[in-house]
């Protein structure tokens, strides 16, 4: 994981009897998933819904930007790097320029530190390597709960 601006460097997990304790999502957080791969879209959607999150999915960065431009709001935006029409880095820059009040997190297959750093520099709060996992979602929920 690469941490972004102002982010804590420690990952706090609640362990109960060796299992990860799921963070309560009684805040009804909403998530926008931007990824062009239908398999990744479906997996992200199902993983997030298992945590009780409300999920909307788009297939490119432009659709993510347009949604926010026309008033949609999300607590969390999970964004892939490589997408057609508008990629994740460009979309992130646009979302930041618009002043969206969302945690913007890159979820990419790119595993080299310099590639992730380049993506981070577009304005991400965090950047994870695929696949999206329960512990990553738990971490993000903890961050969202802190901010709320």
């Amino acid at each position: 994981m690469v941490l972004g601006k102002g982010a804590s460097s420690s990952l706090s997990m609640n362990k109960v009897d060796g299992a990860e304790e799921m963070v309560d999502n009684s805040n009804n957080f909403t998530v926008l998933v931007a990824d062009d791969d239908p398999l990744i879209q479906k997996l992200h959607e199902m993983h997030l819904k298992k945590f009780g999150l409300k999920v909307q999915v788009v297939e490119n960065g432009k659709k993510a930007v347009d949604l926010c431009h026309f008033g949609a709001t999300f607590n969390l935006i999970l964004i892939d790097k490589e997408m057609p029409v508008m990629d994740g880095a460009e979309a992130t820059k646009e979302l930041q320029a618009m002043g969206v009040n969302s945690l913007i997190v890159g979820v990419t297959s790119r595993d080299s530190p310099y590639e992730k750093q380049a993506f981070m520099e577009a304005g991400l709060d965090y950047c994870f390597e695929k696949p999206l996992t329960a512990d990553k979602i738990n971490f993000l929920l903890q961050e969202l709960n802190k901010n709320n």
Partner: protein
Amino acid sequence: MVGTTLSEQLNNHIQTMHDQGILDHHFDHVKKLQNEGNPQFVVRVISMFFNDAETGIAQITSFLNSDDVDFAKTINYVHQLKGCSSSIGGQRMALACSELRNACDDRDKQRCLEIFERVKQEYSTLQECFNTISQMERTIANETGGRQP
């Protein structure tokens, strides 16, 4: 395996795939997403993976077979292949994709071709594994008459 139910056989098959390193825990997470509301989720996801993988492999084949390899575009598809294989728990295939990415970084066409053969081999192994899982899942679904665990 007298007295072993099909569900037990499926679990044993998955465990064998784990033991051989073909699958990792990400597949277990995917399986846990299947529920009564989505009884054929695993079969559906496997099918989507096959589509993704075959498209990616075809594209990479085309790029690597050209005289002047566009390594940047090849890397994009390699990452896509790595992403979908790792997301579904195809551990060995994802690792092979990582190695292929490194070979592309070095712009070493010969090494790329060698490692790509391994990627295709791992895909073939994974495909066989997933076909067995899909078949078992469908049979279990039919036997439970639409009532899914």
